[in-house]
């Protein structure tokens, strides 16, 4: 199986230094973890390949570099190269880090290559008959196992296994391969859409006050304080049972848990004994 991992030039969220985004390092781990039999190649479209050199130390043996201008859309170049490579699985992060961060590149690629896209993958396993089983995170530990036949594009969830440790020797042995990119002619339809974009004004980021859950929008200061300190929450008017019988206490607890909805209702007994 041939696997392509899309790499982006990221910025560290705290220091702003150039770094390989963690999700893409996790994607490399998922791909490399399938075994030696599979061919894994990294793919980067951007002005400078040094931005993703860390990927070599994280487990990739080969990174293909497509030279694209910094502000240009990487999707056409990537789509052309991926169509030539024809990998069985394409892995990407959910979104870039340090750029516009819209997360549209995987979706644009899936549309351009006409591939199914499975988001938020945390595990991979090849199945029989060229099928692929992907585990998708649904949050809170729940998963969805999706089985597909044929090539697929998947984005990686932060709950995927942690990235491999950086190895200096591996980074030295790995190689970059520059790939010539045919200049993509911009179709008139896309140019018209680009012209129709509303102007985007940029200014330094300002952190906004946290939205207090359940706070009344037009309430008084006292009401807002009550909402902020949790006094008006569901547990504010709690029930208190002092020294009840243990059986009665247990019944009360189970009734409360069922009312909250975390415990299933008792199975109705069909045969009264």
């Amino acid at each position, binding site marked *: 199986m041939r696997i392509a991992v899309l790499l982006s030039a990221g910025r560290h969220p705290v220091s702003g230094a150039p770094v390989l985004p963690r999700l893409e390092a996790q994607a490399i781990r998922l791909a490399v973890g399938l075994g030696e039999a599979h061919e894994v190649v990294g793919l980067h479209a951007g002005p400078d390949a040094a931005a993703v050199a860390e990927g070599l130390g994280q487990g990739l043996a080969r990174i293909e570099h497509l030279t694209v201008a910094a502000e240009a859309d990487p999707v056409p170049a990537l789509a052309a190269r991926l169509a030539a490579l024809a990998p069985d699985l394409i892995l990407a992060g959910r979104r870039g880090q340090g750029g*516009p961060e819209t*997360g549209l590149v995987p979706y644009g690629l899936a549309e351009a290559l006409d591939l199914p896209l499975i988001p938020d993958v945390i595990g991979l396993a090849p199945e029989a008959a060229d099928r692929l089983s992907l585990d998708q995170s649904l949050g809170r530990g729940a*998963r969805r196992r999706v089985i597909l036949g044929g090539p697929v594009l998947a984005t990686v969830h932060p709950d995927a296994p942690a990235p491999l440790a950086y190895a200096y020797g591996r980074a030295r042995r790995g190689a970059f391969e520059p790939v010539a990119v045919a200049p993509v002619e911009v179709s008139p339809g896309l140019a018209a*859409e680009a012209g129709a974009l509303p102007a985007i004004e*940029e200014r330094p980021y300002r952190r906004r006050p946290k*939205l207090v859950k359940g*706070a009344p929008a037009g309430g008084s200061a006292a009401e807002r304080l009550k909402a902020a300190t949790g006094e008006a929450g569901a547990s504010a008017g709690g029930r208190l049972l002092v*020294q009840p019988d243990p059986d009665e*206490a247990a019944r009360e607890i189970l009734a409360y848990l069922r009312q*909250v909805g975390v415990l299933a209702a008792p199975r109705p007994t069909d045969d009264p004994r």
Partner: protein
Amino acid sequence: MTRPRRDPRAERAALLVATGEGTRPRLDRTVRRDGGGRLRRDPRRERDGQRVPGVLRPRYDLSQVSRPEAGPVHEAPRTVQAPVPTVVVLDAPAFLVLVVPDAAGGRLTPHDRQVLGAARVLAGREGGVAILAPGTCEGSGPAGADRLVRLDDKGGDALGDCDPGGYDPAGRAALVAEAIAELSPRHVLFPESPDGGDLARRVAVRLRQPLFSDVEAVAAGSIARPAHGRRVEQRTAPGLLVTLAADAVAEYAGPPREAREIPVRIETLARAAPAILSATTIPADPATVPLGLASFVAAAGSGVTDLATFREVVAALHATPGASRVLCDAGLMPRSSQVGASGTVLAATCYVALGISGAPQHLQGVAGCEHVVAVNTDLHAAMIERAGLAIVQDAQAVMPALLRLLTQDAGPTRDAP
């Protein structure tokens, strides 16, 4: 202040009453004649005069000179009745703002309500908010929706046999794109949740429209999102497709809206067979899910000595086991199960504290839990005060009773072959 000098002779003369054979002093000395002396104070009338007419409360400014003649207007005390909310009806909206909620299980999530609130801001007075609800979506009117569009997955039924898991994100995106083409709204808002963000991006590439994602500030004419690692804020006039970050915009708090259902004819698309062969949902195993992700946690403190029974109770409740610092320090429970500031801060919906008094550090770990049940012997423990259901009883006595009831409820399944 000067008072007129008293004239005792004149006063005495004034007290004389003329009779037939001369004069005599008046017998009733309390009756005051007009024109003389000061008025007698009536403290009750004065106090009444200090009350605000209409409302039965004293004036705030008591230094005002009261006019005794103007007594308070005594009204029957106003009965405080909740104002009957009048449903806002918008007959011909100038434009539509479409909201595509997650609505998992046909119920609006808090994030969906926030998206409706943001849509209400964008719609303003003339515009209408339409919600694209999968099936029945209760409570969308009070959440701020003027119109309701049923997006019944007719295509999903047709594909039902070849897609057993019911997971067809591309098909859903196609349906939403069709609905957008049919309704031609001015803006379309999605929640930036795992499902909503995925759907928004699929719709964006399908419609070939730019997407303004992770919006954190919404005003009538402009929206803003962070970019470049939260170093820059991008601000623009709202375009067609927008996704809204969680907990950024307040929910709609005005009077309820109509949520009138409007029919939309979406022809079932002839779609190619989806690439997804099967999709099965694997629920989280409560015994192994990390404590920070668990939705239902039962924890033991130093009031629990029989940990074997505690583990059985936790398994029977299908909860994730937790513990207080005391038990973890003693080595009775693993450190990974410690709840609190130095352990794990929970994101659970429900928390059951057995024999935990509730140290401040422990309560910090539970701060995000919506429902708390506490069993403790101490009536004055902080955990009892925090709990929604507080039981002052020995946890050691309650645990076997819980276990007995739970096995009783699960009894018929064991009998079944």
